[in-house]
């Protein structure tokens, strides 16, 4: 990798990792909730959560932009606190996090659904509170699903473009991720560099998805045992 590329890749990986870590606790909580609870409005919640998956990323980016704009209540609150989000790396993390969230929830949820809820009941009779039982029984049994979700979320965050470009801008050295850089290079007519970056992106994505494949095979094997 040439000089300019290394910090770019590093930035992209860091941002994707941060986005993934950011959504992990709420994503796992939501996934668990969807796996266990049946109630009024569950369908609505599922639909809302799936929106970033089917909406054009630019639409999502636009919504984020409006929410964070100077004039909005949230924007004003952030301004008062001296916190800048739009056009900063924070916005990149945020955009990636929002787009990746549904993927994490889906995969983690299916991991949780594979865990027999009666095991938690037994754990409770043995003295564990619901929370303790979650960490001692449910999570250890569902970790493959959660990890798969995290890997998928990571890959999605890495490839994020539409929402990111709107809410974070394509600022070289500040908010330019791998995806944005590829686009920018083509705009500058630097096709060879663009291709090289695309190659790096492909390699990383391949590794991440391959890992999820291995994980799902191991899950299948254990289920059959």
């Amino acid at each position, binding site marked *: 990798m040439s000089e300019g590329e290394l910090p770019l890749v590093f930035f992209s990986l860091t941002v994707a990792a941060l986005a993934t870590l950011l959504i992990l606790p709420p994503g796992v909580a939501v996934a668990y909730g969807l796996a266990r609870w049946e109630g009024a409005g569950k369908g609505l919640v599922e639909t809302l959560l799936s929106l970033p998956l089917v909406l054009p990323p630019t639409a999502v980016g636009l919504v984020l*932009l409006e929410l964070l*704009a*100077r*004039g909005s209540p949230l924007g004003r609150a952030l301004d008062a606190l001296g916190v800048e989000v*739009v*056009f900063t790396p924070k916005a990149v993390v945020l955009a990636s996090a929002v787009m990746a969230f549904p993927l994490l929830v889906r995969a983690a949820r299916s991991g949780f659904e594979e865990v027999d809820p009666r095991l938690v009941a037994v754990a409770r009779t043995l003295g564990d509170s619901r929370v303790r039982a979650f960490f001692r029984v449910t999570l250890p049994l569902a970790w493959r699903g959660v990890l798969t979700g995290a890997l998928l979320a990571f890959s999605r965050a890495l490839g994020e473009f539409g929402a990111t470009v709107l809410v974070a*801008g*394509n*600022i*070289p050295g*500040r908010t330019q991720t791998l995806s944005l850089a590829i686009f*920018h290079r*083509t*705009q*500058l*007519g630097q096709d060879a560099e663009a291709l090289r970056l695309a190659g790096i992106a492909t390699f990383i994505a391949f590794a991440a998805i391959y890992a999820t494949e291995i994980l799902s095979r191991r899950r299948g094997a254990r289920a059959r045992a």
Partner: protein
Amino acid sequence: MRTLLLALLLALPSASLAGERVLVFAAASTTDALQEVGRAFTKQQGPRVEFAFGASSDLARQAVAGAPADVFLSADTAKMDQVEKAGLVQAGTRVELLSNRLVVVVPVDSKQKVASAADLRGVKRLTLADPAAVPAGLYAKGWLEKVGVWKELEPLVVPTLDVRAALAAVEAGRVDAGIVYATDAAQSKRVRVVLTVPEAEGPRIVYPVAALSRGKDSEAGRAFVHFLAGDTARSIFERYGFIVLSGKPQP
């Protein structure tokens, strides 16, 4: 992108219609003026004019890649050279058509005062059309380099796809200030011009235009370029704030 979609649509009709339609690739800053010129052209001469507006760098790239543009109006000479080098320009049709001025704008309700380039240092965020490729950004960067503040301002810059996107960012208040063309600022009620770049400090802005050939010379394209240099077009351009150059054909 709109241009690509347009190109796809145009690829479908049969070749016999080619004379009836002109596809013009033009710099984003000429959007409103050129649309009016196009309507006048159609009224006077007949062929329909279709536009694809965007950053001249993007348009040049797409033309070179094969997009079926009949006319190219660029915001700087470099992009026209690029297209000409690719052999797409019909001989004798290249003309230096317009010029423009750079201005610094702020949101209309902003209290920001900018008396000179140096004052921009007090700004939190400054938007330009991508200074790496887009003419408007290149001009702005050229100016800021000339007055020696580019290095300090560079970390504050938010680059956009084209100059109209930069304008929109200022209108929406997403940035504190932006550098756009005087003609763009004149179009918007939501920005305020705080500084017009003096001629002495600013770069020489030239908008060349040319008729393109896609293997087959476009008659209507040539006619449109000729129309652009005429009086009707001139008065429209001047009304929008463009500086019309002598219109001498380039050798």
